[in-house]
C-alpha cells in the first residue's frame, strides 16, 4: 500500500468554518494510475494538497509509503516532498529566470547533489522528454507543452514515490494535452511510476486505470477504468 488515507477530515476556518473533507478513505497501490475527479469545490484540490504534504489535515491518518504524514515540521515535510513527491502543476510553475535544465536540476540542488552530477541527470531526463535541444532555453521561450514536459522531468528527477498532477492539461490546447497525457501514461506503463491526476475533465480522467469521484468532501465512488470507457467522450476523443 503506497497511499493509505483513513478518515481524513479537513476544515478551513476563514471567518466561518468550512468542512471541506469529511472523512476520506482512499488506498492507492504502487504503480497505479489514478485520477481524482470532482466539480470545483468538491474538495479535490484540498485532497491533493494533503496528498502532496502541502497542507495539514485535522483528523484521521495519512500513510505515504508506510510513513505517517501528520503534524510534520516544515523542515521534515519539505524533505518528504523532495524525496517522495513529484509535482506537475496546471500553470507549470517553472522558475522564469532559470533555464529548462536548471529548473529540472532544482530538486537535486535541495538534496545537496553536486552541480556536475545534477546537470548530467537533468540532461538525461530532458532527453527522455525529447527536450535536449531546449536545455538552455528559458521557460518563456518554450511552448506550453514543452514547459509541461520540463515540469514533468523536474517531477521525475528525484525518483519520487508518486507524481501528483494538478490539472496538468488545464493550460494546454487539446493536441498538446493528448501528448502530455500519453507521456504520463507511458511513464506509468513502462517505468511503473505511480501517478495521481486531479482533474475535472472526464477525458483526462479517462486515461487513468482508476477514477476516484469526489463530491462534497466524500468519495462518491471508485471506478475501475482499466477498459478506459469511463466517459462518454472517452471512446473516440481523449478529451475536450
Amino acid at each position: 500500500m503506497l497511499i493509505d488515507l483513513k478518515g481524513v477530515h479537513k476544515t478551513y476556518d476563514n471567518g466561518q468554518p468550512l468542512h471541506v473533507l469529511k472523512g476520506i478513505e482512499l488506498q492507492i497501490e504502487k504503480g497505479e494510475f489514478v485520477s481524482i475527479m470532482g466539480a470545483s469545490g468538491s474538495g479535490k484540490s484540498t485532497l491533493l494538497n494533503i496528498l502532496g504534504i502541502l497542507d495539514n489535515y485535522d483528523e484521521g491518518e495519512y500513510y505515504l509509503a508506510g510513513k505517517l504524514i501528520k503534524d510534520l515540521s516544515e523542515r521534515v515535510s519539505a524533505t518528504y516532498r523532495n524525496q517522495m513527491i513529484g509535482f506537475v502543476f496546471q500553470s507549470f510553475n517553472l522558475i522564469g529566470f532559470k533555464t529548462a535544465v536548471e529548473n529540472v536540476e532544482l530538486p537535486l540542488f535541495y538534496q545537496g547533489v553536486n552541480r556536475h552530477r545534477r546537470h548530467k541527470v537533468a540532461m538525461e531526463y530532458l532527453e527522455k522528454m525529447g527536450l535536449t535541444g531546449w536545455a538552455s532555453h528559458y521557460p518563456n521561450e518554450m511552448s506550453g507543452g514543452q514547459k509541461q514536459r520540463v515540469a514533468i522531468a523536474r517531477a521525475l528527477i528525484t525518483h519520487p514515490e508518486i507524481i501528483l498532477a494538478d490539472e496538468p492539461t488545464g493550460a494546454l490546447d487539446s493536441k498538446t494535452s493528448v501528448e502530455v497525457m500519453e507521456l504520463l501514461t507511458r511513464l506509468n506503463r513502462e517505468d511503473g511510476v505511480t501517478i495521481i491526476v486531479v482533474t475535472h475533465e472526464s477525458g483526462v480522467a479517462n486515461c487513468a486505470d482508476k477514477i476516484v469521484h469526489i463530491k462534497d468532501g466524500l468519495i462518491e465512488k471508485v471506478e475501475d477504468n482499466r477498459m478506459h470507457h469511463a466517459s462518454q467522450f472517452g471512446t473516440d476523443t481523449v478529451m475536450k
Partner: protein
Amino acid sequence: MRDLLQEIWESLRRNKVRTCLTGLAVAWGIFMLIVLLGAGNGLLNAFLADGLDFASNTINMGGGVTSKPYDGLKQGRYIQLKDEDTDLLRQPPFSEKVDLVSTNVSKSGYTMTYGRRYFNDVILSGTMPADLEMNRIQMLAGRFINDRDIAEKRKVIIIPHLHAKNFLSGGTDYDKLVGQRVKVGNLSFTIIGVRHGAENQDDRNLYVPYSTVKSMFGLGNDVDEITFSFHGLKTAAEGEAFENQVRATFNTAHRAAPDDRRAVWIWNRFTQNLQMEKIKSILIAALWIIGLFTLVSGIVGVSNIMLITVKERTHEFGIRKAIGARPGNILKLIVTESVLITAFFGYIGMLLGMIACEILNMTVGRSSVEIFGQSMKMLDNPTVGVGAAIGATVVLIVAGTIAGIFPARQAAKVKPIEALRAD
C-alpha cells in the same frame, strides 16, 4: 556555495538599478563612519600630541605654597624642595615601587650665542640622565647627559633642533654641531647632542648636567623639580592613592599639612594619562555611535529592498518549497544576498572613506592654525587603522545579517499552497 552565489547573482542582475540604489545608502553609511573615525583620530592625535611627550608612569613634583596652617606654622609659607627629599623615595613605602629618580634645577633669562647667531631668554635646565627616559627626550644627534657628566660637572649642553637648525642656517645635519661650543651668558658649553624639541620657538630648554648648574650658580641643595618613575599601579584609584601617599610624606617632611594640595605641587602623569585615555576612548566611542547611526539608514534601506524582493518572489519561493526547499534554504538565500549587497557596497564606501581620509591628511593634515599664540596642527594623521577596518567589516556583516533576517523570515514562512495559488 557556488550555487548559492549564482542564485544571488541572477537575482541581483535582474534588479540592477534597485540594487545599486540600496548599495549607495550602505556605501554612504560606511563612508561616513570611516571619515568620522579618521577625522576624529586626527583631532585626537593633534590635541593629545603633547600628552605623549613623557612616560605615563611618572610623577613630577615642585615646590609650592602652603594653603593651611599646620604644626604651629602659618599658611602661605613657601616650600623649597631639597636634594634630601629624594631619599624619601628610596625608603619604604616607596622604595619598592619607585624606579628612576631625577632632579632638576633651572636658570632662565640667558642668551645663547653661536658665532653671530643668538637666542634670547633661554633656560639652562640642569637635569639627570634618567630624564631621557622619563621625559621621552628624542635625541637627533649626539648623546644625552650621562653619569660622568654629572660626576665631573662637565660643561656640556643639549640644544633643541630648531636652535640647531638656525645655527646650521636651515640645515639639518645636526651631527656637525656636536663638539661645537656655544656661549650661554658668559659661560661656554660644548654641544654633546641635539634633541627633538617642540615645533615652535617656545621650547627654550637647554639641558645641562644637574651638578654643573648647581655648582655654577651656587644653588646649595635646592631642587626645582623632582621627577620619578614607578611601577605596579594599574587603576586610577591606585594612582590617586599613591599620589596622596607621596603628598603626605613630602608635606610632612616640610612641616605642611599632609593633605595640603598646594604645599608641594604634584603632577601625576599616571592618572592624567588614564583620564586622557578614558576621554579618548569616550570620544572614539561617540564617533562610532554617530557613524553607526548613519549606517542604520543604509541598513533599513537594504532591509526594505529585501522585503520588496521577497514579496515579488513569493511565487518562486512557493515553487522552491513545493519541490523540497527547507525553510533554512530560503533563509540562507535571502540573508546571504543581504550580506553580499551590504558587504560589497560597504567595502566600496570603506575604500572611498579611506581615500577621503588620505586626502584630508594631505590637505588639512599638513596645515596648522594659530591657537592662543601657539601653532597647532588641525588634524594629525587623520586616518583609520587596521582595527577600525576590521571593526567596520564586522559591522558590515552584522548589518547585512540584520537587514536580511526579517525579510528572510518572511520568505521562509511562505506557504507553498498560498504562493502557488497566487498565479
